[in-house]
Structure formats: C-alpha cells, structure tokens
C-alpha cells in the first residue's frame, strides 16, 4: 500500500525584489509520509511554510525542486483531484453567489450526480451550521461563516484525503468544537485528514501524528505523546472552597500554591502526583475542583527553545534560503 500523501524533498523559492531577482526559500527539502486514515497535524508558527506546502500539493504553485504524490499519483493529476478536498487559508468565494449556489456549482465541477447533489449540498450546509443564511449572497457572510462554507465545499466529493489550511481560524469556540468533532467523524469514516495549525491544542485534541515546521524546515515529526518536548511536566489544579487546614495538608504535595481569591487556589503538582489520587482527597474535604490541566511546553516555547539552542536551526535555514538561487 502506498501512503495517502508522500512528500519528497519539496522545496520552494519565491522570487523577491523587483529589479534584482533574488530568491527567498519558503520551504526547504520537506519530506513527509502520511498513511491513509490518519489525522495528521502540520504545525508551525506563522510564516513557517505551511500554506506554501499545501499550495504546492494543490499545484497552485510549482516546486523549485522535489516531488509529491497523493494517493500514489504525482500531484497535478486531474483525476487525483476527484478524490481530495481542500480548504484554503482564509478562503474567499464569489460575492454574487449564495452559499447554496456556490456548493452546487462546485458539486457540478466535481461531477456529483444530479440526483445526489441537492441532498448533499443541503446536508453539508446543515453539518457546518449554515442555516437560513444559505440563501444569502456570500458578500453578506462573516469571516467565520465563510470559513464554514469553505469546509463544506471541501467535503462535497466525500474526499479520501482532505487538506485543511488553518481550519479553525476565524471560528468562534462553538465553531472550533464543531470542526473538531467533524474531523474526528471523518477519521472514523477512514478518511485521511492533513491539517495545518499554529495552535498545539488543536493538534492534541485530534492528531495521531504531527510534523512541526519552522523557517521552511522540518523541525520535528512523530506522535505528540512521543515528542519529548510536548509531554506533560505536571498538572495544574484550580480548586474552590478549600478550607485552610485542607490547604495545609495539600501544600507538601504541590510544587507551588497561588491564592486567586478567598478559598480559591491554583495548585501546581508534579507529574509523580497522579491526579486520580489527589482529587478524591480534595473532594473529601468539601472543596470543589474547578479545572485540571496538564502543564506542558507550548508550541511557542518549543520553537523558542529550538531556535535558541541550535544556531544552525530554523533561523539558519532561513538565512541560507535567502541566498539560494535556482
């Protein structure tokens, strides 16, 4: 079996400067292999080269060098596009069409049979939460609503492989939750999802595997739980109505205690203190647990650490790229 997406040494130089043509390397020899049925997170800070990669895979731009395959066929093959869906970053559609018309138009281009078309369009709009507004022209849509329409259009052909560029951007919390559950649903149907994000939490909630890019280079790849940088360092517990004597009993277990308000405290616990044991203890004192979160390195911490610890890291790649010529 071939991987759903195979990327080999993909490189993209953008020409910059008007008179003196120089090249700016936005993507540097990226190689990735994504298995069918996987939800793959493509992470990296702004300007890392995520959108560039997705545009290369969609053949909206052409690589300087390297190659890629989708479903075992070289990219650019028109037939391969029948089986993929793509949500561009900050999508934009036609002002003069209604959401319904746009999806119908795209469904026609995708050769969705006439009989199924109407039902599928209506179903998808329901699924992404566009209600009566589907009869409005898209110029009257807010950014978040456009994003939802964008997700719907990517699903029109029931794609085997789905490419989503920052699918959560512009969405309200409810929308984010919807998209998360949608992606998991697609995974359960056996589809491959490749999505980019600069927010680690999105990846944690969804992904089997992730790749992290910075400065156009692959910085890390693997299961999130296996990536040492991202494993939890401890727990953060917020409790209310904590009696003073109970606090004294908990204090030795915690690495740090901060008072937020009367009877409300933040307790930082080391990884060795399993929360399963502590929480019943707290509950028995009559206090309530407000929230509990793992404490771990954020994506941003990760980049900062990576960039500073290795001078040849991401920054180096960028500087090198600037001088690169075709």
């Amino acid at each position, binding site marked *: 079996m071939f991987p759903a997406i195979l990327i080999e040494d993909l490189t993209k130089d953008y020409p910059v400067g008007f008179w003196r043509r120089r090249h700016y390397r936005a993507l540097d020899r990226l190689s990735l292999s994504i298995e069918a049925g996987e939800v793959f997170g493509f992470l990296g800070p702004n300007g890392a080269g995520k959108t560039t990669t997705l545009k290369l895979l*969609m*053949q*909206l731009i052409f690589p300087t060098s390297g190659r890629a395959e989708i479903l075992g066929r070289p990219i650019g093959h*028109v037939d391969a*596009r029948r089986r993929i869906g793509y949500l561009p970053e900050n999508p*934009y559609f036609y002002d003069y069409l209604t959401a319904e018309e746009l999806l119908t138009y795209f469904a026609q281009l*995708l*050769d969705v049979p006439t009989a199924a078309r109407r039902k599928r369009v209506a179903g998808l709009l329901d699924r992404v939460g566009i209600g009566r507004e589907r009869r409005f022209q898209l110029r009257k849509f807010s950014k978040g609503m456009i994003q939802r329409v964008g997700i719907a259009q990517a699903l029109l052909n029931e794609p085997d492989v789905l490419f989503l560029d920052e699918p959560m951007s512009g969405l309200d919390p409810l929308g984010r939750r919807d998209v998360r559950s949608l992606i998991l649903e697609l995974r359960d149907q056996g589809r491959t999802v490749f999505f980019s994000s600069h927010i680690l939490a999105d990846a944690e909630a969804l992904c089997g595997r992730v790749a992290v890019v910075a400065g156009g280079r692959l910085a890390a790849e693997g299961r999130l739980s296996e990536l040492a940088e991202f494993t939890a360092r401890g727990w953060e517990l917020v409790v209310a109505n904590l009696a003073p004597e109970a606090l004294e009993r908990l204090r030795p277990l915690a690495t740090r205690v901060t008072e937020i308000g009367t009877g409300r405290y933040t307790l930082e616990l080391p990884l060795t203190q399993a929360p399963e044991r502590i929480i019943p203890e707290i509950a028995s004192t009559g206090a309530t647990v407000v929230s509990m979160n793992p404490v771990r390195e954020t994506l941003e911490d990760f980049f900062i650490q990576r960039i500073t610890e290795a001078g040849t890291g991401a920054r180096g790649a960028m500087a090198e790229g600037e001088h690169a010529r075709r």
Partner: protein
Amino acid sequence: MRAVRHIALNVFRESIRDRVPYNLVLFAVLLIGSSFLLAQLTAGQDVKIIKDLSLAAASIFGLFIAIFIGIGLVSKEVERRSIYSLLAKPISRPQFIAGKYAGLVLTLAVNVAVMTVAMYAVLGYLTWIESPDFKASWEAPGPDPALLKAMFLIFIELMLVTALALFFSTFSSPLLSAALTFGLYVAGNFNTELRNFEHVVDSPAAAWGARVLYHVLPDLSAFDVKTQVVHGFPVAAGYLWSTAAYGAAYIAALLLAAMYIFSRRDFK
C-alpha cells in the same frame, strides 16, 4: 468539456448579476429616447441616424463589457484567491481559461442579441410612422436585414477583444491589461491607415514596418462595415466569412497563448 460548460455558465450568471443588465437598459433608453427626439428634429434621415447610433452603441457598450469583465474574469479570481478552491477541483487550467472565455462570449452574445432586437424594434416603429415621401429618400430600407451583417462582425470583433483582455490578464495587472487591451483596440482600428502608409511614405523600411504591424496587430478595422451597411452598399458574403475566419484564427492564437502562460503561473 462539462467543466468548461459549468465555468462558462457561472461567468454568465456573474455578469447577469453584475453590470450587464444596466448596460442593456442604458442602451435601450438611449436608443428609444434619441429616436423620439430625432423624429422631431430631422427630415427623414432619422432612420440612418438611428442605425448609426445603434451600431456604434452596440460596439462601444460591447467593448466596455469585453474589456472590463474580460479582464476581471481571471485577475479577480487570482487576486481574491477564489481560484484556490476552484483549481483544487478536477479541472485543468486550460479548461478554466476556456470556460471563462466561453462564459463571456455567451454574455456578449446575449447582449448583442438584445441590442439587435431593440434596434429593429425602434427602426420598425419609425418606418411604420414615417410618411412615404420620407421613405423615398432613404438609401436602405428601415429594418434592413443587412444590418445583421454589421452586428455579426461587431460580435466577432468583441470576441476578439475579449480574447485580448483575457490574454493580457493572465500575466499582467488589471490596470495594465485594460490599458494594453484598449491600446490595441485603438491601434487595431487604425489598421487601414497603416496599410495605406505604403502609398504615402517613401522609406521602404517604414513601409515594411507598417506592413508587419498591419499583419501582427489585430485587424479590427476589417470588422467595421457599419458605414457600408447603413448606406445600403453591398457587403460580400466572402468578405464576411473570411473576416470571421480571420477573427477565429486570431482568437485561437490568443487563447492558446493565454493557456500556455496561465498553466505555468504561480498563484501567490
């Protein structure tokens, strides 16, 4: 092929929802308004003037549609990035160009057809109300079928201008494309003067240069048979079809070049 059709129909829908209807209403108002005014002012020549006016207006209004919508067709999609989601669908870039072009040609066809009907309606009305003495002074009948020949060539000319606009917009900014298209439209209409250069200049180099330009620039002046038709002179069928075939070959060259350029382009 089906993809081309769907893209074309979408272009047609966009233009119908956009500017074209205003354009047609303006044409009709201009035509009807001026015909009533002229009927008061001129002695019998109002039919000639209406013919002049409608043919000129069909050509100029069509020109605006061809240039402005023609340039927007591609550059607007690229600029607003709506092309991203479109090209991820199973359509090739040449199909995209072909569909966009076909859609605008469809729009122009409807436009020209409506204008033709309006022109014949006004001409028919004027012929009906005019006294026989006036009619005797006309060089050609009022609702003259020969006007269709002029409209036909205007339509082919507009198709050519659209292809020009599309071609330029595949590689230059909308403003530059508009300037280039309009410039070529003007130059193409002065083509006969270029051809006559040979008779007036002495320098063989200048004459040769003019000759080359005459062949390379779109020969738009050939599409103008307005004067002949209005004055009731014959226009040979062979002239019509050879000029139309010329237009078709030129359009094919432009579209192929546009597809070639567009297929290699990065969308940033």
